[in-house]
């Protein structure tokens, strides 16, 4: 891909400088310990109304772990619309939802291009499905709404060498964040929803001593090996799942792991939803 119009960074992976004060040797020996109980999420910050020009917007941040060099998650979402459809579009009796997820070029270890790659397109499709189940589409005939999520920081361990970790696990955390932040932005934009949808991630991990357990909000660098993970988008008051993404190696006979992963994912989503509800209450108190 030759993009001559913009100033491009290096195409390949770059290793950020590691300073001596950081204890470069010590960092490698950081034990694979989870910094919190298995059913507790990392701290979440959510705020609406960050982009004045958009009809609705929200910003989400997940704290970084204690390990240095591991970045958290920073997402910004803006909702544009409802607005008229382009002339070429056919008549639609309900609102047309289009979601765009884009990594900032500097969001991950591997530099991202300006064009959307397959991961970003995949995330967009997942996000669209998750939100479509939550909005009341026939309240807005003949109109469209654009949901744009920018990933400013992509929840990755920068200390790890490129290629060792599997990026899919990070992508799941990113997707659950995208769902939560887009839900807050949609509510801020005043688009009718049946419920506030929030994302949650659970994973089946194997620790170094070989014990298998299911944890919520997994961070790849805190666990020995992630066997499988599951990202759900869940409507708490309807008790419905609008989107489910499951990935990993599990024996098909072990049905209990599947149910437990989904259960824990829903539980994680409920926790995230509490932050969302509080954030929306604050929005009305401040602006209304």
């Amino acid at each position: 891909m030759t993009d001559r119009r913009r100033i491009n960074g290096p195409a390949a992976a770059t290793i950020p400088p590691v300073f001596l004060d950081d204890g470069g040797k010590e960092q490698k020996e950081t034990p694979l310990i989870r910094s919190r109980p298995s059913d507790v999420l990392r701290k979440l910050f959510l705020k609406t109304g960050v982009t004045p020009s958009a009809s609705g917007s929200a910003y989400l941040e997940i704290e970084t772990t204690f390990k240095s060099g591991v970045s958290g998650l920073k997402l910004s979402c803006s909702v544009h619309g409802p607005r008229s459809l382009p002339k070429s579009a056919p008549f639609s009796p309900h609102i047309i939802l289009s979601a765009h997820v884009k990594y900032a070029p500097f969001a991950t270890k591997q530099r991202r291009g300006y064009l959307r790659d397959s991961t970003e397109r995949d995330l967009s499709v997942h996000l669209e499905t998750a939100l479509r189940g939550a909005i009341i589409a026939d309240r807005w005939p003949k109109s469209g709404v654009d949901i744009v999520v920018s990933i400013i920081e992509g929840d990755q361990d920068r200390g790890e060498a490129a290629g060792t970790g599997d990026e899919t696990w990070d992508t799941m955390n990113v997707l659950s964040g995208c769902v939560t932040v887009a839900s807050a932005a949609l509510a801020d934009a005043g688009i009718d929803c049946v419920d506030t949808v929030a994302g949650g991630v659970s994973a089946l991990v194997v620790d170094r001593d070989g014990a298998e357990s299911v944890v919520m909000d997994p961070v790849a660098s805190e666990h020995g090996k992630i066997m499988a993970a599951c990202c759900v988008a869940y409507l708490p008051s309807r008790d419905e799942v609008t989107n489910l993404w499951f990935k990993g190696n599990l024996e098909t006979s072990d049905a209990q792991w599947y149910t437990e992963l989904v259960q824990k994912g829903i539980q994680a989503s409920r926790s995230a939803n509490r932050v969302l509800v509080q954030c929306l209450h604050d929005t009305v108190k401040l602006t209304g």
Partner: protein
Amino acid sequence: MASTTTHSIAIPGQALGPTSKYLPGPGTHIHESNLYSSLLGIVHVSQPEKAPGPAKRLTKITPLPPTELPTISVSRSGVSEKREVLPEVNNVVLCRVIRITPRQAVVSILVCGDSVLEAEWQGVIRVQDVRATEKDRVKIYESFRPGDIVRAEVISLGDQANYYLSTAKNEYGVIMATSEAGNTMYPVSWKEYKDPETGISELRKVAKPY
């Protein structure tokens, strides 16, 4: 008068009460015979207007009229009015004429009800919808000209691009027009506007002043 009481904050999906107690207003939806909020905002409960009590002595026994339920609605601002962001059927809109053809006038809808629209929506006034009488004699160029401001009613959501509008009522039609010389004109009859400077009159489908 309908009285309005303001209550707590509602977020989408929050239960507001059973349908047997409230009527659904803007910003709410019904799920399994319960009312839920569908918007983020403040809950309003507006009581229906009290029916006047029996003025006369009752002479016959009739069943009581069905009691009006209070309407519950959710909106972001302090008022329980419906936010009009999209034109709907039977709305009165103000629009500007963009271009005319022998069969229709293409307009851009600017105001819907009392609210100025954020987005611009395109509408069409077809030749058969210009007036209620003598529909076959209507000529678009004798009814509208580009630049006129027209009051019209939405009759259909139309096709993919246009809303279908109608001016087939006395109150609907051109409310502001400029002459070919560029002066603002005043209406003189139901089908004429007059230029105050040149004295030339032009044909329009004139809206009856309220």
